[in-house]
């Protein structure tokens, strides 16, 4: 069932229809209810836009953290250019300006038959439509403990832990940065981080080696920009090793085991392979094949192909679009529009467009960008890149570095306030 139709809506919402004639005080209980799980770029945006576009829909956002710490710009906290407060986004405006109910709790289970979400504190939240936006989870690597070696691929305490590790690299020491197989969150992100680590060590006259171990066969995003940076800007500092997979870690001996053999390091940032937030597999949203890492959804509404009335947006969904905050925001709007139409008895927009933009600092003063626009292809039923829209900046520049802050401030505001 890909498209909601009027018959289904009437069946599912009989109580709602009958209640429309009741006094408003009683009717309040029967207004359409949307529950959103996860207040990152995807979840915050869908909560805001559903309320903006139809304030009669009740929206509850379930998120355990008091504020969201953005991964976007977090490499600039690592190198000291920004502070944590610059990337900390609060939920106040969602509540006060848009009337989103915020539940400070973690969702632990979904009952798609009773249409309820169960939380860690024992609440049961009923929904007519559920939106899952819990971001990513990580594969385990034998011997790797993220409390000892932070991945910093979710921002927050991990970001500060990585910053502390970087500050402690001994002069002339080696820093290993390991990149997981694609698809992972933020395609250019690990290469950007490698550049900023090299830049930081170089500026602090401590540069030894930054050894990039890439599980992929080549640079996944912005190959021109990053090959140039590695070979020219950071010549003699960055060593790039493609097709190199971290298999185990023995950090007491400062040893990292790869498919090519062991390597010694003074410091390391190992980014594990990723999959949809843990709640999805547990709720049947990934189906029965354990190899499925991301939720299959209909890109017209982001409704799960497996569990009706559950929608998945952001990094957890599996449409093949890049896992970026900009894209998470774009998908959230397509989903919000489809939800608003659903409650009005309409089918989703048949021709949605989404876009992504990532700005990557390459040095302390310059940045590059990567962008692409996706459009729905009715023949394959998938989102496809529009010709001529996938591009990286021809060269990093200080102008793009400035542009990065204008872009990020607007993206933060459009998602959270």
């Amino acid at each position, binding site marked *: 069932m890909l498209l909601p139709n009027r018959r289904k809506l009437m069946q599912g919402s009989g109580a709602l*229809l009958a209640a429309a*004639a009741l006094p408003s005080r009683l009717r309040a209980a029967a207004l359409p209810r949307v529950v959103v799980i996860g207040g990152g770029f995807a979840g915050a945006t869908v909560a805001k*836009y559903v309320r903006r576009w*139809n304030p009669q829909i009740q929206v509850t956002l379930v998120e355990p953290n008091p504020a969201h710490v953005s991964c976007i710009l977090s490499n600039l906290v690592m190198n000291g250019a920004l502070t944590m407060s610059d990337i900390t986004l609060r939920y106040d405006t969602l509540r006060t300006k848009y009337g989103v109910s915020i539940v400070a709790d973690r969702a632990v289970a979904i009952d798609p038959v009773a249409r309820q979400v169960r939380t860690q504190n024992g609440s049961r939240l009923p929904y007519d439509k559920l939106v899952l936006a819990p971001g990513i989870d990580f594969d385990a690597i034998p011997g790797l403990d993220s409390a000892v070696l932070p991945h910093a691929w979710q921002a927050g305490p991990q970001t500060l832990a990585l910053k502390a590790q970087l500050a402690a690299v001994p002069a002339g020491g080696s820093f290993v940065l390991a990149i997981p197989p694609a698809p992972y969150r933020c395609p250019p992100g690990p290469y950007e981080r490698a550049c900023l680590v090299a830049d930081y060590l170089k500026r602090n006259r401590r540069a030894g080696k930054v050894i990039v171990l890439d599980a992929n066969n080549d640079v996944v995003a912005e190959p021109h920009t990053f090959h140039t940076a590695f070979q020219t800007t950071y010549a003699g500092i960055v060593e790039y090793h493609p097709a190199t997979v971290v298999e185990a870690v023995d950090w007491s001996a400062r040893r990292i085991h790869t498919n090519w053999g062991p390597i010694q390091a003074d410091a390391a940032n190992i980014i594990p392979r990723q999959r949809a937030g843990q709640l999805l597999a547990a709720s049947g949203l990934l189906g029965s094949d354990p190899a499925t890492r991301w939720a299959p959804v209909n890109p017209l509404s982001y409704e799960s192909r497996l569990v009706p009335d559950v929608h998945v947006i952001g990094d957890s969904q599996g449409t093949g679009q890049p896992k970026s905050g900009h894209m998470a925001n*774009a998908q959230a709007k397509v989903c919000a529009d489809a939800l608003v139409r659903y409650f009005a008895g309409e089918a989703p927009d048949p021709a*949605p467009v989404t876009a992504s933009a990532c700005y990557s600092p390459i040095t302390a003063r310059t940045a590059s960008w990567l962008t692409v*626009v996706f459009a729905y292809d009715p023949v394959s039923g998938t989102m496809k890149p529009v010709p001529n829209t996938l591009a990286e900046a021809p060269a990093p520049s200080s102008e793009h570095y400035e542009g990065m802050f204008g872009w990020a*401030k607007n993206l933060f505001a459009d998602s959270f306030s």
Partner: protein
Amino acid sequence: MKLHLKRPPRSVALALLLAAAAAHGAPPAGRLLAAQCAQCHGTDGQAVAGMEKLAGESEGEIYGELVKMKANIKPDEIMHRQAAGYTDAQIRLIARYFATVGRSATTTGAVSSRRKSDD
């Protein structure tokens, strides 16, 4: 069926719901497409910093700029790549939407601001 007499027949209830939903539900043409500009240009085109505001620009202005960018992509301009993502008809809808939100109060009550007069 007696029980049901206390509430209006289904068709009336449905009509009420759809009327209520239509007030907020049926999206104006171009709204979703235009919302994809907001990541950089602000919610409903009201940019917060460092980016061009789109709300209140005239339809001709926005349409003209986007079509020009799309026809002549400069490699150093990220916006030209974005423009290339939309069909002519979609660009028309986006331009019309922004010209409208600048003029009328939006659902957020955001203050409309006209940067330039219509051309």
